């Protein structure tokens, strides 16, 4: 038995899989912002009760948390000091000197402020060059002075980031000793440990982020461990989701705070990939539409993409991060009229508080959810299984007053307009994401989840020429399911920076071997037997003179000719050209260790139903007027998702409702419930 727990802003989602039977159970509890561990414990208790299981059967828990993200958004991390090479204390603040795209014409838009003010950024006299040679030895007097200033400045964490430390960490390590001696107990993050890659600003930014978040996340993890131990009388095996889409132990998570940021959306991507495999689609685009955002992830050949060049809240991080784009389009996105008289939707959201006007919690602005309600796509009496009763009159009022009347349009036309505009925004997001990565969207299936995903997915697919939409089972708890199926993961990197032609396979092999040894040790320590361990060697490579790299897998025999050939092929696929006569530079060596968890084998529902053969006809639970593009309001059948028999087919235009979401099936589409409870929509 395994449990996945995803703590979101509003709800804590819990999924339990009984490995003996393949049965899945889920629960939703309210997130408890004061003390997040309360909500986690309540969630575990609730799901155990639903599943009628005891904690004694638990193998492990995988936990995704927004604690790091929240601390970063709310700027409630630790008071942090930074030690750098003399002459370079401002690298963190200058960054790459580029203002944000939104600030191209808007003089008020700035990059986020540095997390360490200048008086807490202290220099030490030292310098190492590109070969790792000590040009200027570490002056311990300046080091001690720097530490003393930070201690006097009452910092709660220290980041150390020296030039070229990833080639030769000797000065950073010596600084760690000096800090331990002169300022005992303060947590220290070394750039040569946190992100040992070249490009000083990005490495420093990652290290500072780790130092800034570490005291907050470690305190949470300690309190959670203690609460669980007290509740259940033993240490539970709790693993923490990383932004990379793999889990780590609590012990590792205490040190690697930065890896915990953004772990929630990563669960969603892993789940979309899992659902793709379950339903036989290797090319899927996951679209997760919640209250405030629309997350897009493109999964090519079953592999969720991982990138090392992302940023969190505007701060660059150089750690492996699941590659997803997020745009400001959700159920709570607010419709508004700009000074030129055009209707816009988002990116501002009414969020969960006050929420859409129809929630009746004081929200006055019209939102996408209000529009869906007026178009008959949401059932006012069945939202969140009836937990919230939606106020149609409030939605009507909000749309009429703020948008319809100023535009001189009827409320229904306005509501349809709001949906058209939010759909156009999402189509643009998906199109740009896929073309940026060199893919044709028409070859992909959409996996639509989040509370609002399946209300819109059919229209999006129609717009983009996509032929299949999968609405997964548990589509409102999918991130928690993703946590549950994710493997453990460790990543190590070393910058190398030599041309392939001047590299010796023996030298590379030794370097990879050293990294692999550390990775294997970590996975062993995590409790993975050798037959569950997989180790991948990859190289970030580029043509000499380029300033961006492509990550290419390498075989353990280190055939450099094969490596160059593979690089050329990757380059051709990604960038539509290759240049085999040019020198290939091997920039970073990476080793990824995966600890495979046992596969989750879901139990088919309804036993005995043959594929493709309807075992029973679907019967609508009601008919009501629902709006469809190209048709207007149609008296359409409404089906209850939980009552759809396996193999049953429903034809659009119709609506399939469930307690936490709904699927709009447009004309020309057929929806079919598969044996795992997924709803597969195909265009006829």
């Amino acid at each position, binding site marked *: 038995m395994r449990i996945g727990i995803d703590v979101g802003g509003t709800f804590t989602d819990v999924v339990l899989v009984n490995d003996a039977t393949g049965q899945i159970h889920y629960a939703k509890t309210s997130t408890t912002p004061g003390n997040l561990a309360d909500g986690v414990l309540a969630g575990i208790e609730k799901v155990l009760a639903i599943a009628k299981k005891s904690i004694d059967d638990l193998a492990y828990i995988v936990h995704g948390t927004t604690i790091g993200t929240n601390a970063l958004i709310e700027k409630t991390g630790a008071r942090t000091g930074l030690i750098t090479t003399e002459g370079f204390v401002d690298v963190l603040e200058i960054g790459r*000197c580029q*203002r944000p795209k939104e600030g191209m014409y808007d*003089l008020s838009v*700035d990059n986020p402020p540095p997390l360490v003010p*200048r008086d807490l950024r202290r220099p030490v006299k030292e310098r190492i060059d590109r070969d790792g040679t000590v040009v200027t030895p570490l002056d311990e007097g300046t080091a001690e002075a720097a530490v003393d200033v930070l201690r006097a400045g009452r910092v709660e964490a220290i980041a150390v980031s020296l030039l070229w430390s990833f080639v030769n960490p000797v000065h950073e390590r010596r600084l760690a000793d000096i800090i331990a001696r002169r300022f005992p107990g303060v947590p220290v993050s070394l750039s040569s440990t946190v992100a040992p890659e070249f*490009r000083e600003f990005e490495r420093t930014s990652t290290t500072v982020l780790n130092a800034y978040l570490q005291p907050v996340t470690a305190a949470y993890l300690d309190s959670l461990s203690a609460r669980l131990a007290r509740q259940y009388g033993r240490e539970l095996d709790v693993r923490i989701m990383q932004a990379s889409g793999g889990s780590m132990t609590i012990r590792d998570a205490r040190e690697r705070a930065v890896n915990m940021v953004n772990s929630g959306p990563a669960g969603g991507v892993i789940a979309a990939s899992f659902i793709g495999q379950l339903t036989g689609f290797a090319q899927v685009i996951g679209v997760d539409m919640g209250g405030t955002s629309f997350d897009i992830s493109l999964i090519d050949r079953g592999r969720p993409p991982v990138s090392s060049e992302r940023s969190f809240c505007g701060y660059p991080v150089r750690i492996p991060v699941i590659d997803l784009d997020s745009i400001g389009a959700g159920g709570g996105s607010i419709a508004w009229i700009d000074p*030129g*008289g055009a*209707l816009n939707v988002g990116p501002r959201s009414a969020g969960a508080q006050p929420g859409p006007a129809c929630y009746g919690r004081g929200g006055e602005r019209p939102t996408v959810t209000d529009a869906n309600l007026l178009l008959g796509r949401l059932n006012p009496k069945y939202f969140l299984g009836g937990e919230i009763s939606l106020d149609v009159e409030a939605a009507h009022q909000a749309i009429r007053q703020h948008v319809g009347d100023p535009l001189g349009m009827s409320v229904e036309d306005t509501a349809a307009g709001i949906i058209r*505009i939010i759909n156009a925004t999402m189509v643009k997001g998906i199109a740009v994401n896929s073309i940026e990565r060199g893919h044709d969207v028409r070859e992909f299936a959409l996996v639509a989840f989040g509370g609002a995903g399946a209300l819109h997915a059919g229209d999006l697919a129609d717009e983009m020429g996509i032929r299949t939409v999968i609405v997964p089972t548990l589509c409102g708890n999918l991130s928690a399911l993703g946590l549950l199926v994710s493997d453990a993961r460790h990543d190590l990197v070393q910058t190398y920076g030599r041309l392939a032609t001047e590299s010796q396979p023996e030298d590379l092999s030794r370097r990879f071997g050293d990294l692999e040894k550390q990775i294997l040790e970590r996975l062993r320590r995590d409790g993975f037997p050798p037959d569950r361990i997989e180790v991948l060697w990859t190289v970030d490579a580029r043509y000499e003179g380029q300033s961006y790299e492509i990550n290419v897998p390498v075989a353990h025999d280190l055939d450099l000719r094969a490596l160059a050939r593979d690089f050329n092929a990757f380059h051709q696929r990604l960038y539509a050209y290759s240049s085999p006569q040019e020198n290939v530079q091997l920039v970073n060596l990476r080793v990824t260790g995966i600890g495979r968890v046992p596969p989750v084998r879901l139990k088919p529902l309804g036993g005995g139903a043959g594929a493709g053969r309807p075992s029973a006809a679907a019967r609508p639970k009601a008919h009501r007027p629902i709006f469809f593009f190209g048709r207007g309001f149609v008296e359409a059948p409404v089906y209850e998702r939980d009552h759809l028999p396996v193999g049953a087919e429903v034809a659009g235009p119709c609506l399939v409702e469930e307690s936490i979401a709904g699927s709009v099936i447009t004309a020309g589409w057929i929806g079919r419930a598969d044996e795992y409870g997924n709803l597969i929509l195909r265009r006829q």
Partner: protein
Amino acid sequence: MAAVDPITMQVVRYGLEQIADEMGYTMMRTARSTVIKEVLDFSCALADRQGRTIAQAHHVPMLVGSLDITMKRVLEHYGGGAERLEEGDVVISNDPYLGGQHVMDMQVFAPVFEEGTLIGLVGNIAHQVDMGGMAPGGVAGGMTEIFQEGIRFPMIKFHQRGVENPEVIRMIATNVRIPEVTLGDMRSQVSAASVGVRRFKEIYRKHGPATFQSAVDTLLNYSEERIRQGLRQIPDGTYAGEDFVDDDGIGDEPFRVAVTIEKAGGGIAVDFEGTSPQARGNINCPIASTYAAVYYVVIALSDPHVPPNAGAFRPVEFRIPEGTVVNPRPPAGVTARTNTTAKIVEAMIRALAQAVPDRVVSGSHAQSTTCGFVGYHPRTGKRFSFTDIEVGGAPARPYRDGRDGQDSHLARFMNTPIEAAEMEFPILVERFQFRPDSGGAGLYRGGLAVQRDIRLLADASFARYADRHKFAPWGVAGGKDGAVGEFVLNPGREGEQRVRSKGLSELRAGDVVSLRLPGAGGFGDPLKRDPEAAARDVREGKVSREAARRDYGVVLKADMTVDEIETARLRGTGQT
């Protein structure tokens, strides 16, 4: 034609913007050079059948409206005479005297036909790494004619009816230094244009000719109206402003950029009468760059989030005398034009400061400093060429300090990491840090400049163009000027000397070049600055104790907190 409803207009607008973005991503994905892939020095646009820009995707304000001029010219050129556009044609042009920016910026255009009728045009512009000429990469002072700057294409068919023209390919391959990169990037521009053509037809068919054209008209009117509304917030009147380029790299005389702005209702006219005649050095600014600088200021001060289409440009009228640095005649060189375009922005802001003192910003570092180090790498024996671009302080605003060490206005780009540069080139960076006290004092302080000290580990030539080494970034509304920039060779050592902002020097291994950039001016009376903010600057070492006392009238105690009594006393006497 009747306007479409505002929802259809928005849906068409997002569709068009999506096409422009898709063209951009196609180019980023398939281009060869870093300038396109990482610096994002490119723009993509769509025009209707009249050549009016209906959507644009760009990342650098310098390119706003650039294609609007040439797309119209392409349609004019192929509109009446013997030369005609046909389906599958691709036209290239990089002539600054035909609406281009500089020779390095290649433009590619493709017509869109539906059932034999021209329905629109797609275009893009991208910075090439080399177009021939006397200097690799085009960075060099001392050029005096456009002929030295590279080969020019004055609207040539690169493709005819879908087939690449082999003669043009041969011509380019013969004249540029690294043909596979230049041709690779040009072909990537063509791929982007093909994507644009295909998607343009799709959106046109989806909405139908009547709705499409009506939506486009509505969209252009919408952008126009947004700009006009913004302009109406600026009091009517005539406002004059000026700024200066230090010199043209050949002589020592300054060049004046003069603007007279006439603002009436929702319209604005910009007159450059009084601007210096064109320069011998290549700081001349072709008309497309002059337009971009003016559009930038108008958009930033009236409606920064307007869709930048032809409608947004309609409220602006120009009077630009020919033969000046802002509208040169051939064969004036234009490569270092950003020296002058930056001053157009600053002069306009200075003029408008008289109209809306509470909405303008201070003078900035203006021109990004561009340096090229070229020599032979001792490690490989091969030639290296390191282009380093640095920025100074960003302007102070009526509500916030200027950004320290960040780009501003027309430039928007990323610097090269120190470790990336040292990995590749024989240099050791000794310092990359703010210059304290370089931000002009004010109620809101001007952005600090950076200083970058580079030690050469091999002999190299040092080519550069920079500005504001003589004319300081000005303060506004009572704010003080920021620091000027300077280049110092071997600071603190024997042979220390200041070198000029534009030029070429031969340096030896072991030499240190100290690039000290200009800061930005301050906004508002420094004596009104929150003493706590001034004290924080001192604690952070951004402003010295002495400057805090002298410029801000703020005195700090030994523990670095504000000495309120002394401060009040000083500020009381300071406000005479």
